[in-house]
């Protein structure tokens, strides 16, 4: 639970951890049930419908107004979105 919460950037209380832990456990059990199904000879599929090659011609469309982006950003400066400083160790 701690690992998942960290990956998802969510802070959980002890109470929440217990509750979600139980719920996730139920989901995992459900997958264990699915694992018992024999799928020999069935091709792996990521989609319910056999639809392929949904493609778009390479024609550029208009850009959104930068003001729109900046309006929905928590903070903006120099026509860019401001986020907490991110750097690597030696940067």
């Amino acid at each position: 639970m701690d690992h998942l919460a960290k990956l998802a950037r969510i802070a959980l209380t002890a109470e929440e951890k217990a509750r979600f832990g139980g719920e996730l456990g139920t989901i995992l059990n459900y997958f264990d049930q699915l694992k018992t199904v024999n799928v020999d000879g069935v091709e792996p599929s990521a989609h319910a419908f056999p639809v392929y090659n949904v493609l778009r011609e390479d024609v550029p469309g208009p850009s959104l107004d930068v003001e729109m982006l900046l309006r929905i950003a928590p903070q903006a400066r120099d026509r860019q979105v401001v986020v907490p400083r991110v750097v690597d160790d030696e940067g």
Partner: protein
Amino acid sequence: MSFEYEAVIGLEIHVQLKTRSKVFAPSSYLYGGDVDPKSVEPNTLIDPVVLALPGALPVLNKAALEQSVRFGLLVGATIPPVSNWDRKNYFYPDSPKNYQLSQKDFPITIGGEVEIELPGPSRNIMGEHKVIRLNHAHLEEDVGKLSHAGAGSLVDYNRAGAPLLEIVTEPDLRSSEEAVALLNAIRMLLVAAGIADCDMEKGQMRCDANVSIRQHGETVLNTRTEMKNLNSISGVKNAIEYEFKRQIREVEAGKTIRQETRGWNAETGRTYSLRSKEDAHDYRYFPDPDLMPVQVSEADQARLAATLPERPYLRQRRYMEEFALPYTITSVLVPDRLLCEYFEAAVAAHPANPQGVANLIVNDLLRELTAAKKSGAEENSFAEENAAEEVAAVSLADCPLKAEELAGLVKLTDEGVISKQQAKDVFVEMFQTGKSAAAIVDAKGLRQSSDSGEIEKIIREVLALPSSEKPIAEFKSGNEKAINSLKGPVMKASKGKANPQVVDQVLRRLLGEL
């Protein structure tokens, strides 16, 4: 005691594909157009898909798919029957969706190989060639650009969603020289096929290197480190060399190499450990439900294969064998597809002398094109390592001379109508005025006379001179060289316009009749 170590290197090469719009979004991407994307105001190449606004759905760009398949066909890769996209989940502010659309289990191309050339013992001698295997290539989206300013970081999403082909090699490289040779070979292939421009300075080609070491003769793969974002040829070379030495030092000191991601600091010339990101490497890939898989039919593959150029090293060998061109000339022609097409068009117009045609292109045409470019708009000069690019940067699109016209000049020279020395001057004038070689030769009265009747008349006059008696007698008595004492006065009498071959021919005939 000290062992002899070798480096085991695999590269992950990210290449921005040459498309007009982004890979999953219609927003413009301005690749390779007249506008340098760097000069574009931040956040002006954005749309709801790029920003992952609620409800926006990605649709794959057909051109990005086709360019990826063309790459696969060019390197002899397999195009699998089905390919699909996965979400690579991680939080970083340059990615608006908190996941990157990438490919994990069913990439667009599988396998393939790239021929590389190592530096030869000198510039004019061909180096050793090797074949580097590819593992696969997958099509994904680029992220935005972060810049750091004071307490915060600024995000520009112009680059976010640009089509990125990640080419992953097998660990077949054994030195930094081989890694550099591979980058050059891939760049040459992609540029020739019009798939990408691969300008590392513009970030169109970026590279991660996986490096491990082992003792010579071993076949094991030891723990490797990954160096991220090597964004210049010298960065790739120096980072690999530094990391190779660092790992040897560690092992000799009895330490073990940790699997980790390291950064390259070009200023200090060192690699450094990035904060442990074991957690962050848990990307929780799963198939993207918004994008449907693709199937590239045999017919589409055949159609795309027909658009591919001859592979540069194959073309080089063909030029050396078919046209007997020297290595140095071919190594100038071959990286530039347009130059090759120009050369072949000129040879088609004058098939008798491919070497003469190639020499004129490589020496005279490129010189004039470079001079014309320099005197034109001010260009930033490239660093020394990009000297090869500077030649490639000269565009034949600006060339005022048609290949057939250039061939016409070589033909006039070969036929002895003008001398090689005269041809150089005529070429410069052709380039400047756009006139044909024949027009310039006629206007300047340079045409050598091949009219054997006229030449015969001049020769008869010269042979009748008293000063010719001695050389005639010497030639008749078997002194072959004496004929030169007769040719000089003939050429002089013709004011240098007589075709030397015709003079020789007629002179021998007339001497035989005496």
